[in-house]
Protein backbone atom coordinates (compact mmCIF):
# COMPACT_ATOMS: atom_id res chain seq x y z
CA UNK A 1 0.00 0.00 0.00
CA UNK A 2 2.07 2.88 1.24
CA UNK A 3 5.79 2.98 0.74
CA UNK A 4 7.48 2.84 4.16
CA UNK A 5 10.25 5.16 3.04
CA UNK A 6 7.66 7.81 2.37
CA UNK A 7 6.12 8.00 5.81
CA UNK A 8 5.12 11.61 5.70
CA UNK A 9 2.20 10.94 7.97
CA UNK A 10 4.17 10.29 11.15
CA UNK A 11 5.33 13.83 11.72
CA UNK A 12 3.96 16.24 9.20
CA UNK A 13 6.15 18.89 7.72
CA UNK A 14 6.18 21.89 10.00
CA UNK A 15 3.65 24.28 8.62
CA UNK A 16 4.70 27.79 7.86
CA UNK A 17 5.45 30.15 5.06
CA UNK A 18 8.55 31.06 3.13
CA UNK A 19 9.93 32.86 6.15
CA UNK A 20 10.02 29.71 8.28
CA UNK A 21 11.68 27.78 5.47
CA UNK A 22 14.39 30.43 5.07
CA UNK A 23 14.92 30.46 8.83
CA UNK A 24 15.21 26.69 8.82
CA UNK A 25 17.76 26.74 6.01
CA UNK A 26 19.74 29.42 7.84
CA UNK A 27 19.97 27.23 10.95
CA UNK A 28 21.73 24.57 8.88
CA UNK A 29 25.41 25.30 8.31
CA UNK A 30 25.50 24.05 4.72
CA UNK A 31 22.20 25.73 4.06
CA UNK A 32 23.52 29.06 5.29
CA UNK A 33 26.50 28.94 2.90
CA UNK A 34 24.29 27.75 0.05
CA UNK A 35 21.73 30.45 0.66
CA UNK A 36 24.42 33.17 0.79
CA UNK A 37 26.18 31.96 -2.38
CA UNK A 38 22.93 31.55 -4.28
CA UNK A 39 21.76 34.94 -3.08
CA UNK A 40 24.95 36.66 -4.25
CA UNK A 41 24.79 34.92 -7.63
CA UNK A 42 21.17 35.94 -8.01
CA UNK A 43 21.97 39.56 -7.25
CA UNK A 44 24.91 39.53 -9.66
CA UNK A 45 22.77 37.99 -12.39
CA UNK A 46 19.99 40.53 -11.89
CA UNK A 47 22.48 43.42 -11.86
CA UNK A 48 24.08 42.16 -15.07
CA UNK A 49 20.68 41.78 -16.67
CA UNK A 50 19.94 45.49 -16.16
CA UNK A 51 23.44 46.49 -17.31
CA UNK A 52 25.05 46.98 -13.94
CA UNK A 53 28.54 45.56 -14.57
CA UNK A 54 31.91 47.24 -13.96
CA UNK A 55 32.47 47.56 -17.71
CA UNK A 56 30.39 46.96 -20.79
CA UNK A 57 30.74 43.18 -21.30
CA UNK A 58 30.81 43.42 -25.11
CA UNK A 59 32.67 46.71 -25.70
CA UNK A 60 36.05 45.92 -27.27
CA UNK A 61 39.07 47.87 -26.18
CA UNK A 62 42.14 47.12 -28.39
CA UNK A 63 44.45 49.15 -26.11
CA UNK A 64 43.94 46.75 -23.17
CA UNK A 65 44.22 43.26 -24.70
CA UNK A 66 45.00 40.31 -22.42
CA UNK A 67 45.79 42.39 -19.35
CA UNK A 68 46.24 40.27 -16.18
CA UNK A 69 44.09 40.63 -13.08
CA UNK A 70 44.47 44.00 -11.40
CA UNK A 71 42.51 46.45 -9.31
CA UNK A 72 41.14 47.92 -12.50
CA UNK A 73 40.18 44.63 -14.18
CA UNK A 74 39.54 42.06 -11.42
CA UNK A 75 39.89 39.13 -13.77
CA UNK A 76 41.90 40.85 -16.46
CA UNK A 77 40.79 41.27 -20.07
CA UNK A 78 40.45 38.93 -23.02
CA UNK A 79 41.97 39.06 -26.51
CA UNK A 80 39.58 41.86 -27.49
CA UNK A 81 40.30 43.87 -24.38
CA UNK A 82 36.90 43.07 -22.86
CA UNK A 83 36.66 42.98 -19.07
CA UNK A 84 36.49 39.30 -18.04
CA UNK A 85 34.76 40.02 -14.72
CA UNK A 86 31.97 41.92 -16.46
CA UNK A 87 31.63 39.20 -19.05
CA UNK A 88 31.47 36.57 -16.31
CA UNK A 89 28.72 38.48 -14.51
CA UNK A 90 26.75 38.70 -17.73
CA UNK A 91 27.47 35.00 -18.31
CA UNK A 92 26.08 34.13 -14.87
CA UNK A 93 22.95 36.03 -15.82
CA UNK A 94 22.63 34.16 -19.11
CA UNK A 95 23.27 30.77 -17.52
CA UNK A 96 20.81 31.38 -14.71
CA UNK A 97 18.19 32.49 -17.20
CA UNK A 98 18.41 29.16 -18.98
CA UNK A 99 18.60 27.18 -15.74
CA UNK A 100 15.67 28.91 -14.06
CA UNK A 101 13.46 28.67 -17.13
CA UNK A 102 14.33 25.00 -17.62
CA UNK A 103 13.76 24.03 -14.00
CA UNK A 104 10.55 26.03 -13.76
CA UNK A 105 9.17 24.21 -16.79
CA UNK A 106 10.32 20.82 -15.56
CA UNK A 107 9.05 21.39 -12.01
CA UNK A 108 5.59 22.53 -13.08
CA UNK A 109 5.05 19.85 -15.71
CA UNK A 110 6.68 17.08 -13.69
CA UNK A 111 4.87 17.93 -10.47
CA UNK A 112 1.45 18.18 -12.06
CA UNK A 113 1.99 14.91 -13.92
CA UNK A 114 3.43 13.17 -10.86
CA UNK A 115 0.81 14.31 -8.38
CA UNK A 116 -2.10 13.55 -10.69
CA UNK A 117 -0.74 10.15 -11.66
CA UNK A 118 -0.12 9.23 -8.04
CA UNK A 119 -3.50 10.48 -6.89
CA UNK A 120 -5.67 9.23 -9.72
CA UNK A 121 -3.79 6.02 -10.48
CA UNK A 122 -5.22 3.77 -13.17
CA UNK A 123 -4.71 4.43 -16.84
CA UNK A 124 -3.27 7.93 -16.45
CA UNK A 125 -0.71 6.59 -13.98
CA UNK A 126 0.28 3.94 -16.52
CA UNK A 127 0.69 6.52 -19.29
CA UNK A 128 2.78 8.86 -17.14
CA UNK A 129 4.79 5.97 -15.74
CA UNK A 130 5.71 4.54 -19.14
CA UNK A 131 6.62 7.96 -20.59
CA UNK A 132 8.79 8.56 -17.54
CA UNK A 133 10.51 5.22 -18.03
CA UNK A 134 11.22 6.02 -21.66
CA UNK A 135 12.81 9.36 -20.78
CA UNK A 136 14.81 7.74 -17.98
CA UNK A 137 16.16 5.14 -20.37
CA UNK A 138 18.39 7.72 -22.09
CA UNK A 139 21.52 9.11 -20.45
CA UNK A 140 20.76 12.70 -19.48
CA UNK A 141 23.39 14.48 -21.60
CA UNK A 142 22.69 12.30 -24.61
CA UNK A 143 19.00 13.06 -24.34
CA UNK A 144 19.66 16.80 -24.07
CA UNK A 145 21.99 16.63 -27.07
CA UNK A 146 19.47 14.79 -29.24
CA UNK A 147 16.68 17.19 -28.29
CA UNK A 148 18.86 20.14 -29.31
CA UNK A 149 19.78 18.32 -32.48
CA UNK A 150 16.07 18.09 -33.22
CA UNK A 151 15.09 21.60 -32.12
CA UNK A 152 18.16 23.54 -33.21
CA UNK A 153 20.68 25.55 -31.22
CA UNK A 154 20.07 28.53 -28.98
CA UNK A 155 19.46 29.26 -25.33
CA UNK A 156 15.68 28.76 -25.47
CA UNK A 157 16.00 25.32 -27.02
CA UNK A 158 18.70 24.49 -24.49
CA UNK A 159 16.26 25.38 -21.72
CA UNK A 160 13.58 23.19 -23.29
CA UNK A 161 16.01 20.29 -23.64
CA UNK A 162 17.10 20.54 -20.02
CA UNK A 163 13.46 20.77 -18.94
CA UNK A 164 12.56 17.59 -20.82
CA UNK A 165 15.46 15.75 -19.20
CA UNK A 166 14.32 16.84 -15.76
CA UNK A 167 10.56 16.28 -16.10
CA UNK A 168 10.70 12.54 -15.25
CA UNK A 169 12.74 13.26 -12.12
CA UNK A 170 10.08 15.66 -10.86
CA UNK A 171 7.40 13.14 -11.79
CA UNK A 172 9.02 10.56 -9.51
CA UNK A 173 9.70 12.97 -6.70
CA UNK A 174 6.07 14.13 -6.75
CA UNK A 175 4.41 10.77 -7.29
CA UNK A 176 5.94 8.80 -4.42
CA UNK A 177 4.80 10.97 -1.53
CA UNK A 178 1.43 11.46 -3.25
CA UNK A 179 0.82 7.73 -2.97
CA UNK A 180 1.41 7.99 0.77
CA UNK A 181 -0.57 11.19 1.32
CA UNK A 182 -3.48 9.89 -0.74
CA UNK A 183 -4.11 7.19 1.86
CA UNK A 184 -4.13 9.61 4.78
CA UNK A 185 -7.35 10.16 6.54
CA UNK A 186 -7.57 13.87 5.96
CA UNK A 187 -7.73 13.26 2.23
CA UNK A 188 -10.63 10.89 2.86
CA UNK A 189 -12.07 13.56 5.14
CA UNK A 190 -11.93 16.00 2.22
CA UNK A 191 -14.12 13.66 0.20
CA UNK A 192 -16.52 13.33 3.10
CA UNK A 193 -17.12 17.10 3.10
CA UNK A 194 -17.75 16.95 -0.61
CA UNK A 195 -14.60 18.55 -2.02
CA UNK A 196 -13.98 18.21 -5.73
CA UNK A 197 -11.02 16.17 -6.91
CA UNK A 198 -9.19 19.27 -8.11
CA UNK A 199 -9.62 21.04 -4.79
CA UNK A 200 -8.33 18.02 -2.87
CA UNK A 201 -5.39 17.60 -5.21
CA UNK A 202 -4.12 21.15 -5.33
CA UNK A 203 -5.13 22.49 -1.92
CA UNK A 204 -4.62 19.42 0.24
CA UNK A 205 -2.35 16.91 -1.45
CA UNK A 206 0.13 19.12 -3.30
CA UNK A 207 1.21 21.25 -0.32
CA UNK A 208 1.85 18.08 1.67
CA UNK A 209 4.19 16.61 -0.94
CA UNK A 210 5.97 19.87 -1.72
CA UNK A 211 9.00 19.42 0.55
CA UNK A 212 10.98 16.96 -1.61
CA UNK A 213 9.99 18.92 -4.72
CA UNK A 214 11.45 22.12 -3.31
CA UNK A 215 14.70 20.32 -2.50
CA UNK A 216 14.75 18.88 -5.99
CA UNK A 217 14.39 22.34 -7.50
CA UNK A 218 17.67 23.47 -5.92
CA UNK A 219 19.50 20.34 -7.09
CA UNK A 220 17.96 20.59 -10.55
CA UNK A 221 19.13 24.19 -10.86
CA UNK A 222 22.72 23.17 -10.20
CA UNK A 223 22.52 20.38 -12.74
CA UNK A 224 20.91 22.73 -15.26
CA UNK A 225 23.72 25.28 -14.91
CA UNK A 226 26.26 22.54 -15.46
CA UNK A 227 24.42 21.16 -18.47
CA UNK A 228 23.92 24.58 -19.99
CA UNK A 229 27.64 25.26 -19.61
CA UNK A 230 28.44 21.91 -21.19
CA UNK A 231 26.10 22.41 -24.13
CA UNK A 232 27.31 25.96 -24.71
CA UNK A 233 30.88 24.75 -24.53
CA UNK A 234 30.05 22.37 -27.36
CA UNK A 235 28.56 25.28 -29.25
CA UNK A 236 24.99 23.99 -28.99
CA UNK A 237 23.64 26.23 -26.28
CA UNK A 238 23.80 29.98 -26.03
CA UNK A 239 25.08 31.47 -29.28
CA UNK A 240 27.49 34.41 -29.70
CA UNK A 241 27.31 37.37 -29.47
CA UNK A 242 25.32 36.51 -26.34
CA UNK A 243 27.48 35.28 -23.54
CA UNK A 244 27.24 32.38 -21.16
CA UNK A 245 29.67 30.68 -18.84
CA UNK A 246 30.14 27.64 -21.04
CA UNK A 247 30.71 29.77 -24.10
CA UNK A 248 33.36 31.77 -22.25
CA UNK A 249 35.21 28.65 -21.17
CA UNK A 250 35.07 27.45 -24.74
CA UNK A 251 36.44 30.76 -26.08
CA UNK A 252 39.25 30.69 -23.54
CA UNK A 253 40.51 27.27 -24.58
CA UNK A 254 43.21 28.66 -26.89
CA UNK A 255 44.24 31.35 -24.47
CA UNK A 256 44.53 29.31 -21.33
CA UNK A 257 48.32 28.94 -21.53
CA UNK A 258 48.92 32.66 -22.03
CA UNK A 259 45.99 34.19 -20.15
CA UNK A 260 44.67 31.70 -17.53
CA UNK A 261 42.29 34.25 -16.06
CA UNK A 262 40.07 34.18 -19.13
CA UNK A 263 39.16 30.61 -18.26
CA UNK A 264 39.48 30.80 -14.50
CA UNK A 265 36.72 33.34 -14.00
CA UNK A 266 33.84 31.59 -15.83
CA UNK A 267 34.96 28.15 -14.64
CA UNK A 268 35.08 29.35 -11.06
CA UNK A 269 31.62 30.86 -11.47
CA UNK A 270 30.21 27.50 -12.62
CA UNK A 271 31.86 25.69 -9.72
CA UNK A 272 30.64 28.20 -7.15
CA UNK A 273 27.12 28.13 -8.53
CA UNK A 274 26.96 24.33 -8.52
CA UNK A 275 28.39 24.02 -5.00
CA UNK A 276 26.18 26.81 -3.72
CA UNK A 277 22.99 25.28 -5.09
CA UNK A 278 23.89 21.83 -3.78
CA UNK A 279 24.50 23.23 -0.32
CA UNK A 280 21.19 25.07 -0.56
CA UNK A 281 19.54 21.78 -1.48
CA UNK A 282 21.10 20.18 1.60
CA UNK A 283 19.90 23.01 3.76
CA UNK A 284 16.38 22.80 2.36
CA UNK A 285 16.34 19.09 2.96
CA UNK A 286 17.18 19.41 6.61
CA UNK A 287 14.86 22.39 7.03
CA UNK A 288 11.90 20.58 5.48
CA UNK A 289 12.58 17.06 6.68
CA UNK A 290 10.65 16.36 9.86
CA UNK A 291 12.91 13.45 10.74
CA UNK A 292 16.03 15.54 10.91
CA UNK A 293 16.79 17.20 14.20
CA UNK A 294 16.33 20.91 13.92
CA UNK A 295 19.05 22.17 16.26
Amino acid at each position, binding site marked *: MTDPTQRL*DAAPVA*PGGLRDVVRGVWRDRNGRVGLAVTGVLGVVALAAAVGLTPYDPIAQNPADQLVGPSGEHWFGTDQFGRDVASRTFAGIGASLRVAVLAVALAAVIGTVAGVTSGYLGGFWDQVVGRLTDVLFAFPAILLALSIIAALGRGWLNTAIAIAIVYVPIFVRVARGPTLAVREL*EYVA*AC*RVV*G*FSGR*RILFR*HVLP*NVSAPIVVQVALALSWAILTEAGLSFLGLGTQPPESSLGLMVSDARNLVTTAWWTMAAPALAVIIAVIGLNLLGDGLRSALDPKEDRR
Partner: protein
Amino acid sequence: MNDEVREPVLEVRDLHTVVRTDGHDLPVVRGVSFDVRAGEAVALVGESGSGKSLTALSVMGLLPDAARVVGGSVRLGGRDLQSLPESERRRTRGAQIAMVYQDPMTSLNPLMRVGSQVVEALDAHGVPRDEARRRAVEALGGAGLPRPERVARRYPHELSGGQRQRVMIAMAIALRPTVLIADEPTTALDVTIQQQVLALVDELRRATGLALIWITHDLGVVARVADRVLVMYAGQVVEAGPTRDLYRAPQHPYTAGLLGSIPPMLGTERPDLLQIGGAPPDLARRPSGCAFHPRCPQRVDRCVEEEPVLKPRGENLAACWVPRDHWVPAERAVS
Protein backbone atom coordinates in the same frame (compact mmCIF):
# COMPACT_ATOMS: atom_id res chain seq x y z
CA MET B 1 -38.63 8.34 22.55
CA ASN B 2 -40.01 9.87 19.41
CA ASP B 3 -43.64 10.35 20.14
CA GLU B 4 -45.10 11.18 16.75
CA VAL B 5 -44.42 9.62 13.41
CA ARG B 6 -42.16 11.81 11.32
CA GLU B 7 -40.96 11.36 7.79
CA PRO B 8 -37.58 9.66 7.84
CA VAL B 9 -34.73 11.88 6.65
CA LEU B 10 -32.72 8.92 5.52
CA GLU B 11 -34.18 5.67 4.24
CA VAL B 12 -31.96 2.73 3.47
CA ARG B 13 -33.72 -0.16 1.80
CA ASP B 14 -32.33 -3.62 1.20
CA LEU B 15 -28.79 -2.35 0.66
CA HIS B 16 -26.37 -4.82 -0.87
CA THR B 17 -22.67 -4.05 -1.21
CA VAL B 18 -19.93 -6.31 -2.53
CA VAL B 19 -16.15 -6.15 -2.47
CA ARG B 20 -14.25 -7.56 -5.39
CA THR B 21 -11.47 -9.92 -4.26
CA ASP B 22 -9.59 -12.33 -6.48
CA GLY B 23 -12.11 -11.90 -9.24
CA HIS B 24 -15.07 -12.72 -7.00
CA ASP B 25 -17.68 -10.40 -5.60
CA LEU B 26 -17.79 -10.94 -1.86
CA PRO B 27 -21.01 -9.75 -0.28
CA VAL B 28 -20.14 -7.52 2.68
CA VAL B 29 -23.48 -5.80 3.22
CA ARG B 30 -26.48 -8.08 2.73
CA GLY B 31 -29.88 -6.49 2.64
CA VAL B 32 -29.54 -3.84 5.30
CA SER B 33 -32.59 -1.61 5.80
CA PHE B 34 -33.20 1.19 8.25
CA ASP B 35 -34.73 4.65 8.63
CA VAL B 36 -33.48 7.64 10.55
CA ARG B 37 -35.77 10.54 11.45
CA ALA B 38 -34.79 14.09 12.27
CA GLY B 39 -33.47 14.34 15.80
CA GLU B 40 -33.26 10.58 16.13
CA ALA B 41 -30.12 8.61 16.93
CA VAL B 42 -29.65 5.14 15.50
CA ALA B 43 -26.69 3.00 16.46
CA LEU B 44 -25.07 0.45 14.16
CA VAL B 45 -23.35 -2.10 16.35
CA GLY B 46 -21.12 -4.99 15.45
CA GLU B 47 -17.67 -6.50 15.57
CA SER B 48 -14.93 -5.49 13.13
CA GLY B 49 -15.82 -6.79 9.71
CA SER B 50 -19.54 -6.94 10.40
CA GLY B 51 -20.13 -4.45 7.59
CA LYS B 52 -21.17 -1.47 9.69
CA SER B 53 -18.58 0.91 8.30
CA LEU B 54 -19.15 -0.28 4.75
CA THR B 55 -22.85 0.35 5.26
CA ALA B 56 -21.99 3.94 6.22
CA LEU B 57 -19.65 4.38 3.26
CA SER B 58 -22.31 2.97 0.93
CA VAL B 59 -24.72 5.57 2.24
CA MET B 60 -22.11 8.31 1.73
CA GLY B 61 -21.23 7.01 -1.73
CA LEU B 62 -17.57 6.84 -0.74
CA LEU B 63 -16.80 3.15 -1.03
CA PRO B 64 -13.21 2.16 -1.77
CA ASP B 65 -12.43 1.30 -5.40
CA ALA B 66 -12.88 -2.44 -4.97
CA ALA B 67 -16.34 -2.14 -3.40
CA ARG B 68 -19.66 -1.23 -4.96
CA VAL B 69 -23.34 -1.13 -4.17
CA VAL B 70 -25.19 -3.80 -6.13
CA GLY B 71 -28.71 -3.44 -4.84
CA GLY B 72 -31.17 -1.51 -2.75
CA SER B 73 -31.71 2.19 -2.39
CA VAL B 74 -30.58 5.09 -0.26
CA ARG B 75 -33.02 7.98 -0.08
CA LEU B 76 -32.07 11.26 1.51
CA GLY B 77 -34.95 13.66 2.03
CA GLY B 78 -36.93 11.66 -0.53
CA ARG B 79 -34.20 11.80 -3.20
CA ASP B 80 -32.67 8.56 -4.41
CA LEU B 81 -28.92 9.15 -3.97
CA GLN B 82 -27.97 6.14 -6.05
CA SER B 83 -29.46 7.65 -9.19
CA LEU B 84 -27.72 11.02 -8.82
CA PRO B 85 -24.71 11.75 -11.01
CA GLU B 86 -21.45 11.87 -9.02
CA SER B 87 -21.14 15.66 -9.27
CA GLU B 88 -24.53 16.14 -7.61
CA ARG B 89 -23.94 13.40 -5.12
CA ARG B 90 -20.72 15.15 -4.11
CA ARG B 91 -22.70 18.29 -3.35
CA THR B 92 -24.87 16.37 -0.90
CA ARG B 93 -21.81 15.26 1.02
CA GLY B 94 -20.98 17.71 3.74
CA ALA B 95 -24.00 19.83 2.95
CA GLN B 96 -26.76 17.33 3.73
CA ILE B 97 -25.02 14.27 5.00
CA ALA B 98 -21.85 14.62 7.01
CA MET B 99 -19.51 12.17 8.65
CA VAL B 100 -17.12 12.26 11.57
CA TYR B 101 -14.71 9.46 12.06
CA GLN B 102 -12.27 7.58 14.04
CA ASP B 103 -8.88 9.08 14.03
CA PRO B 104 -8.79 12.79 14.78
CA MET B 105 -4.99 12.72 14.72
CA THR B 106 -4.75 12.30 10.96
CA SER B 107 -8.09 13.67 9.82
CA LEU B 108 -6.91 17.25 9.42
CA ASN B 109 -4.54 18.68 6.85
CA PRO B 110 -1.32 19.28 8.82
CA LEU B 111 -0.34 22.30 6.75
CA MET B 112 -3.53 24.31 7.12
CA ARG B 113 -4.87 26.30 10.04
CA VAL B 114 -7.92 24.54 11.38
CA GLY B 115 -10.10 27.61 10.85
CA SER B 116 -9.13 27.68 7.19
CA GLN B 117 -10.10 24.04 6.87
CA VAL B 118 -13.59 24.73 8.14
CA VAL B 119 -13.80 27.78 5.87
CA GLU B 120 -12.67 25.58 3.01
CA ALA B 121 -15.52 23.17 3.64
CA LEU B 122 -18.02 26.02 3.50
CA ASP B 123 -16.34 27.54 0.46
CA ALA B 124 -16.53 24.25 -1.40
CA HIS B 125 -20.30 24.43 -1.05
CA GLY B 126 -20.56 27.96 -2.33
CA VAL B 127 -20.73 29.94 0.91
CA PRO B 128 -19.11 33.36 0.31
CA ARG B 129 -15.72 33.78 2.01
CA ASP B 130 -16.77 36.44 4.53
CA GLU B 131 -19.79 34.54 5.66
CA ALA B 132 -17.78 31.31 5.65
CA ARG B 133 -15.25 32.84 8.02
CA ARG B 134 -17.96 33.94 10.42
CA ARG B 135 -19.76 30.62 10.27
CA ALA B 136 -16.51 28.68 10.75
CA VAL B 137 -15.81 30.45 14.04
CA GLU B 138 -19.44 29.93 14.99
CA ALA B 139 -19.17 26.21 14.24
CA LEU B 140 -15.94 25.87 16.24
CA GLY B 141 -17.68 27.52 19.16
CA GLY B 142 -20.70 25.29 18.61
CA ALA B 143 -18.41 22.26 18.82
CA GLY B 144 -17.52 23.35 22.33
CA LEU B 145 -14.10 24.85 21.64
CA PRO B 146 -13.47 27.77 23.98
CA ARG B 147 -12.29 30.99 22.32
CA PRO B 148 -13.01 29.71 18.81
CA GLU B 149 -11.44 32.67 17.03
CA ARG B 150 -8.10 31.78 18.62
CA VAL B 151 -8.44 28.06 17.95
CA ALA B 152 -9.18 28.87 14.31
CA ARG B 153 -5.66 30.20 13.89
CA ARG B 154 -4.02 27.04 15.25
CA TYR B 155 -2.45 24.27 13.21
CA PRO B 156 -3.64 20.71 13.90
CA HIS B 157 -0.41 19.72 15.66
CA GLU B 158 -1.00 22.46 18.22
CA LEU B 159 -4.28 20.87 19.33
CA SER B 160 -5.02 17.83 21.46
CA GLY B 161 -6.88 14.78 20.17
CA GLY B 162 -10.10 15.89 21.79
CA GLN B 163 -9.78 19.37 20.34
CA ARG B 164 -9.13 17.99 16.89
CA GLN B 165 -12.17 15.78 17.10
CA ARG B 166 -14.16 18.89 18.02
CA VAL B 167 -12.73 20.62 14.95
CA MET B 168 -13.86 17.65 12.85
CA ILE B 169 -17.30 17.94 14.36
CA ALA B 170 -17.30 21.69 13.69
CA MET B 171 -16.42 20.95 10.06
CA ALA B 172 -19.25 18.44 9.87
CA ILE B 173 -21.90 20.72 11.36
CA ALA B 174 -20.74 23.98 9.75
CA LEU B 175 -22.86 23.26 6.69
CA ARG B 176 -25.86 22.32 8.83
CA PRO B 177 -26.42 18.86 7.42
CA THR B 178 -29.56 16.91 8.14
CA VAL B 179 -27.78 13.59 8.72
CA LEU B 180 -24.57 13.00 10.65
CA ILE B 181 -22.78 9.67 10.51
CA ALA B 182 -20.38 9.16 13.41
CA ASP B 183 -18.04 6.24 12.72
CA GLU B 184 -16.52 5.40 16.11
CA PRO B 185 -15.49 8.99 16.67
CA THR B 186 -14.59 8.40 20.30
CA THR B 187 -12.50 5.25 19.94
CA ALA B 188 -9.14 7.01 19.79
CA LEU B 189 -9.89 9.37 22.68
CA ASP B 190 -9.39 9.26 26.44
CA VAL B 191 -12.40 8.13 28.41
CA THR B 192 -13.10 11.58 29.85
CA ILE B 193 -12.82 13.20 26.42
CA GLN B 194 -15.02 10.44 25.03
CA GLN B 195 -17.73 11.44 27.46
CA GLN B 196 -17.43 15.08 26.46
CA VAL B 197 -17.64 14.30 22.76
CA LEU B 198 -20.61 12.03 23.35
CA ALA B 199 -22.37 14.75 25.29
CA LEU B 200 -21.55 17.30 22.59
CA VAL B 201 -22.94 15.23 19.73
CA ASP B 202 -26.00 14.41 21.78
CA GLU B 203 -26.57 18.08 22.50
CA LEU B 204 -26.11 19.06 18.85
CA ARG B 205 -28.61 16.44 17.84
CA ARG B 206 -31.23 17.73 20.25
CA ALA B 207 -30.54 21.38 19.44
CA THR B 208 -30.51 21.11 15.66
CA GLY B 209 -32.66 18.08 14.96
CA LEU B 210 -29.79 16.18 13.34
CA ALA B 211 -30.50 12.64 12.32
CA LEU B 212 -27.62 10.72 13.84
CA ILE B 213 -26.14 7.39 12.86
CA TRP B 214 -23.62 6.23 15.44
CA ILE B 215 -21.37 3.36 14.41
CA THR B 216 -19.59 1.56 17.20
CA HIS B 217 -18.68 -1.74 18.76
CA ASP B 218 -19.05 -0.25 22.22
CA LEU B 219 -22.45 -1.02 23.70
CA GLY B 220 -21.75 1.28 26.62
CA VAL B 221 -21.62 4.19 24.20
CA VAL B 222 -24.77 3.00 22.44
CA ALA B 223 -26.77 3.03 25.66
CA ARG B 224 -25.91 6.69 26.13
CA VAL B 225 -26.65 8.07 22.68
CA ALA B 226 -29.00 5.88 20.71
CA ASP B 227 -32.77 5.75 20.50
CA ARG B 228 -32.64 2.62 18.41
CA VAL B 229 -30.01 -0.01 17.79
CA LEU B 230 -29.22 -2.19 14.81
CA VAL B 231 -26.95 -5.12 15.55
CA MET B 232 -24.97 -6.30 12.55
CA TYR B 233 -23.30 -9.63 12.00
CA ALA B 234 -21.54 -10.79 8.83
CA GLY B 235 -23.07 -8.01 6.75
CA GLN B 236 -26.62 -8.45 7.96
CA VAL B 237 -28.83 -6.87 10.57
CA VAL B 238 -29.52 -9.67 13.05
CA GLU B 239 -31.48 -7.62 15.56
CA ALA B 240 -33.04 -4.18 15.63
CA GLY B 241 -35.09 -2.40 18.20
CA PRO B 242 -35.44 0.46 20.67
CA THR B 243 -32.33 0.68 22.82
CA ARG B 244 -34.07 -0.02 26.11
CA ASP B 245 -35.91 -3.11 24.91
CA LEU B 246 -32.90 -4.48 23.17
CA TYR B 247 -30.80 -4.13 26.30
CA ARG B 248 -33.44 -5.51 28.64
CA ALA B 249 -34.46 -8.45 26.49
CA PRO B 250 -32.18 -9.20 23.56
CA GLN B 251 -33.90 -11.51 21.11
CA HIS B 252 -30.82 -12.71 19.26
CA PRO B 253 -28.12 -14.80 20.96
CA TYR B 254 -25.45 -12.62 19.36
CA THR B 255 -26.88 -9.47 20.96
CA ALA B 256 -27.14 -11.34 24.24
CA GLY B 257 -23.49 -12.35 23.86
CA LEU B 258 -22.39 -8.77 23.19
CA LEU B 259 -24.32 -7.53 26.22
CA GLY B 260 -22.90 -10.30 28.36
CA SER B 261 -19.38 -9.26 27.47
CA ILE B 262 -19.68 -5.74 28.88
CA PRO B 263 -17.65 -5.56 32.09
CA PRO B 264 -20.07 -4.95 34.97
CA MET B 265 -19.85 -1.85 37.10
CA LEU B 266 -18.45 -2.28 40.59
CA GLY B 267 -21.10 -3.41 43.00
CA THR B 268 -23.56 -4.71 40.45
CA GLU B 269 -24.36 -8.33 40.64
CA ARG B 270 -23.09 -9.89 37.45
CA PRO B 271 -20.37 -12.19 38.66
CA ASP B 272 -18.59 -13.24 35.49
CA LEU B 273 -17.89 -11.84 32.10
CA LEU B 274 -19.29 -13.90 29.28
CA GLN B 275 -17.55 -14.17 26.02
CA ILE B 276 -18.59 -15.18 22.55
CA GLY B 277 -16.42 -18.08 21.48
CA GLY B 278 -14.81 -18.27 18.06
CA ALA B 279 -14.26 -15.49 15.56
CA PRO B 280 -16.46 -13.67 13.05
CA PRO B 281 -16.83 -15.74 9.88
CA ASP B 282 -14.58 -15.36 6.88
CA LEU B 283 -16.90 -13.70 4.38
CA ALA B 284 -15.52 -15.85 1.61
CA ARG B 285 -16.61 -18.98 3.51
CA ARG B 286 -19.89 -17.94 4.95
CA PRO B 287 -21.48 -20.64 7.11
CA SER B 288 -24.67 -22.23 5.82
CA GLY B 289 -27.97 -21.20 7.30
CA CYS B 290 -27.59 -18.60 10.02
CA ALA B 291 -24.13 -17.04 9.74
CA PHE B 292 -23.82 -17.01 13.53
CA HIS B 293 -24.58 -20.71 14.07
CA PRO B 294 -20.99 -21.95 14.53
CA ARG B 295 -20.60 -19.63 17.52
CA CYS B 296 -24.13 -19.77 18.84
CA PRO B 297 -24.85 -21.39 22.20
CA GLN B 298 -28.52 -21.75 21.25
CA ARG B 299 -27.96 -23.53 17.96
CA VAL B 300 -30.53 -26.06 16.75
CA ASP B 301 -30.44 -28.15 13.57
CA ARG B 302 -32.56 -25.71 11.64
CA CYS B 303 -29.94 -22.95 12.12
CA VAL B 304 -27.44 -24.89 10.02
CA GLU B 305 -29.86 -25.52 7.18
CA GLU B 306 -32.03 -22.48 6.82
CA GLU B 307 -31.24 -18.78 6.96
CA PRO B 308 -33.47 -16.89 9.39
CA VAL B 309 -35.03 -13.57 8.36
CA LEU B 310 -35.77 -10.50 10.48
CA LYS B 311 -39.11 -11.01 12.22
CA PRO B 312 -40.83 -9.19 15.08
CA ARG B 313 -39.78 -10.72 18.40
CA GLY B 314 -40.99 -9.04 21.54
CA GLU B 315 -40.44 -5.33 21.02
CA ASN B 316 -37.64 -5.95 18.56
CA LEU B 317 -36.92 -7.44 15.19
CA ALA B 318 -34.61 -10.44 15.26
CA ALA B 319 -33.27 -12.95 12.78
CA CYS B 320 -33.19 -16.13 14.86
CA TRP B 321 -35.01 -19.45 14.83
CA VAL B 322 -34.87 -19.97 18.57
CA PRO B 323 -37.22 -17.83 20.67
CA ARG B 324 -35.73 -16.27 23.75
CA ASP B 325 -37.76 -18.37 26.20
CA HIS B 326 -36.30 -21.53 24.65
CA TRP B 327 -32.70 -20.46 25.27
CA VAL B 328 -30.44 -22.55 27.44
CA PRO B 329 -28.34 -20.59 29.98
CA ALA B 330 -25.14 -19.48 28.28
CA GLU B 331 -21.99 -21.21 29.42
CA ARG B 332 -19.78 -19.27 31.75
CA ALA B 333 -16.56 -18.06 30.25
CA VAL B 334 -13.25 -17.83 32.00
CA SER B 335 -12.76 -14.26 33.11
